[in-house]
């Protein structure tokens, strides 16, 4: 990325890590939706805390904050199972462009469903960095967010406890047409109309 980008990002970034832009507690869900199907979930999402170290990580499949990945990549790669990496809402995908070849799946933790930054992260990951592995939204992600998150590039979701995950599958078929391109193959409406002239 250009240097102007980095400079501007630093100027604007309002909060340091560990503030409410990041998940505060580990997230462990029994089920997930992957490619529009309900599956058993095995990934333990580790929250970003000041004390977090590789030695403290739980056994099994995990997702870890990007900072931990950057600092301990070699150790993490030696683990068996899934090691997914989180990109928080206040981080920028372009800052980690050299990592994606080595990251087997990306997790976008959403602290609040009204915060739309992760949508742009997913979009950039798919279109600019051609990331073709799993992108999973977790946290405050419910039925009514699934449609647009899918359009923006997420293909996996974990809903908070208490949400009806079967009902939420309907979100994928609610809207049967679109006006604009995103990552889902939707075309700009004007190019579709143009094609018949």
């Amino acid at each position, binding site marked *: 990325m250009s240097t102007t980008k980095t400079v501007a990002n630093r100027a604007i970034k309002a909060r340091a890590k560990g503030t409410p832009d990041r998940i505060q507690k580990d997230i462990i869900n029994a089920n997930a939706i992957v490619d529009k199907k309900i599956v058993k979930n095995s990934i333990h999402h580790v929250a970003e805390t000041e004390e977090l170290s590789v030695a403290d990580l739980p056994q099994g499949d995990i997702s870890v904050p990007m900072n931990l990945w950057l600092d301990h990549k070699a150790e993490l790669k030696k683990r068996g199972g899934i090691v997914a990496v989180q990109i928080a809402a206040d981080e920028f995908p372009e800052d980690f462009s050299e990592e994606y070849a080595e990251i087997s799946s990306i997790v976008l933790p959403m602290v609040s469903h009204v915060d739309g930054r992760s949508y742009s992260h997913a979009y950039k990951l798919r279109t600019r960095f051609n990331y073709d592995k799993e992108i999973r939204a977790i946290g405050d992600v419910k039925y009514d967010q699934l449609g647009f998150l899918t359009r923006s590039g997420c293909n996996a979701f974990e809903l908070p406890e208490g949400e009806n995950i079967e009902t939420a599958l309907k979100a994928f078929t609610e*809207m*049967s047409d679109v006006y604009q391109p995103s990552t889902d193959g939707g*075309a700009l409406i004007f190019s579709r109309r143009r094609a018949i002239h």
Partner: protein
Amino acid sequence: MYKYDAVDKTIVADRVEQFRGQVSRHLAGELSATDLAPLRLRNGLYMQIHAHMLRVSIPYGLVSSEQMRALAQVSRQYDKGYGHFTTRQNIQFNWPELADVPDILQDLSNVEMHAIQTSGNCIRNISSDHYAGVATDEIIDPRPYCEIIRQWSTLHPEFYWLPRKFKIAVTGATEDRAAVKFHDIGLEVVVNDAKQVGFRVYVGGGLGRTPVIGKVIKEFLPREDILSYCEAILRVYNLHGRRDNKYKARIKILVNAMGIDDFRDEVEAEWSHFKDGELKLHDIDFETMQAFFPKPAYDNLNSGDDRVAKWRDLDSRFKAWYDNNTVEHIQPGYRIVNISLKEHGVAPGDATDAQMDAIASIAEQYSFAEIRVTHEQNLVLADIREQDLLEVWKALDAERLATPNIGSVNDMICCPGLDFCSLANASSISVAKQINEKFNDFDELYDIGEVKLKMSGCMNACGHHHVGHIGILGVDKKGEEWYQLTVGGDATNNAALGTHLGKAIAKDRVGDAIGDILDVYKDIRTGDERLLDTFRRVGIDPFKEKVYAEDS
């Protein structure tokens, strides 16, 4: 006007069913009120003091007779028999029941209307010049561009959860009637030396708590790039706009914090990734869209109708209406007619179901079945033959829609205020009435001439008080309603924010204070100066001295 094709119909129909599902999940206890709130807002549904309020989108203010009748029917069937036209060229219904709203939206979808993104932190209705297509100073018809942006921005998956609301306006004329410098993005048409059509792009303008005049981010954006450039601005804003404080979340705060040059660099860097990609528009796209806004089938009338002069001579009420409420048209023999929704004693912008039906019929008979909503909360019949003016005037007058006060002190913009709005600090409608009552002598109004009086019931500035020639802001002082006045605001080409007059004024003195300001103006004006021009010449002091004379 634009007609839906199968894609538009599918999207709007799916959207109605989606909202029906959300409401029924809520009523069944499966979707909490907190989680429903942002979803209903994105379908135009607010919770106000007494009831829900539904804001229906009127893209760039253009509405057909058929649609106007449907709005009248909604007000009759689901509301209390009236609607409120807004400064965003939309309409609001103040009393719908939540459970009825999916049916209302379905009824509206039958006439190609919706309430998508009329509220919430997303891209709102695209607004424009209410004289589009008929103004004598028009360079390019802005409506095709508005419609293109409307479609691109509708249910855009990435920009549905912005830091704050986002408003885009387009003007295609020399005189800016769309207040583009007070929008998050303002597009002002420019034809360059090579005869290419493009836009000067303003960013970061807005009113609200922190009024800011938009800054130029791009002097000339070729028209084929409008969508990609808007997308680049929106993406930078979505990622960088503040989300920790809703009062600092608009793009104007971001632009001011970064500075326009750094903000521009960021947008250009973002844009460079996809500027020649699939969002690029082609000439055929504009031609196809322009075909929805053809020049109407005007009669070939060489010049005006001689009888108009006679009607004006023989009926002073007609003359007053003609002089104040009608405007020169680009087509010989035609006039633009403004319908005043500022009748004395009625909340500014309100129209009853019967009035809406009547307007639909008048438009059908005389004006190609189209009506425009202005951001000054009036309506426009854009294409009236001069020979029909007397009949049109009679028909409007019979419905109390011909108050000859367009552009006068009585033609004020006013938010719903404390009477309806849960945000308001003070009432607006009762102050509007007070001012109406004080200035009930039309000859005096005409002598005073053009005064844009704009009033908001709180600092959120829905009544655009910052850009009123006279602005009034309601404030709460220890539980009492007080009003702060400004002078010298201007939403047009020479955009300016009003200057504070002084300390807040008690509610019962607002009318007198306006009277004082206008007395000073009448005393010191020269030639055909408007109040705004006089203020620009002499500053705030003479007005301040008079209004606060009793205090000293």
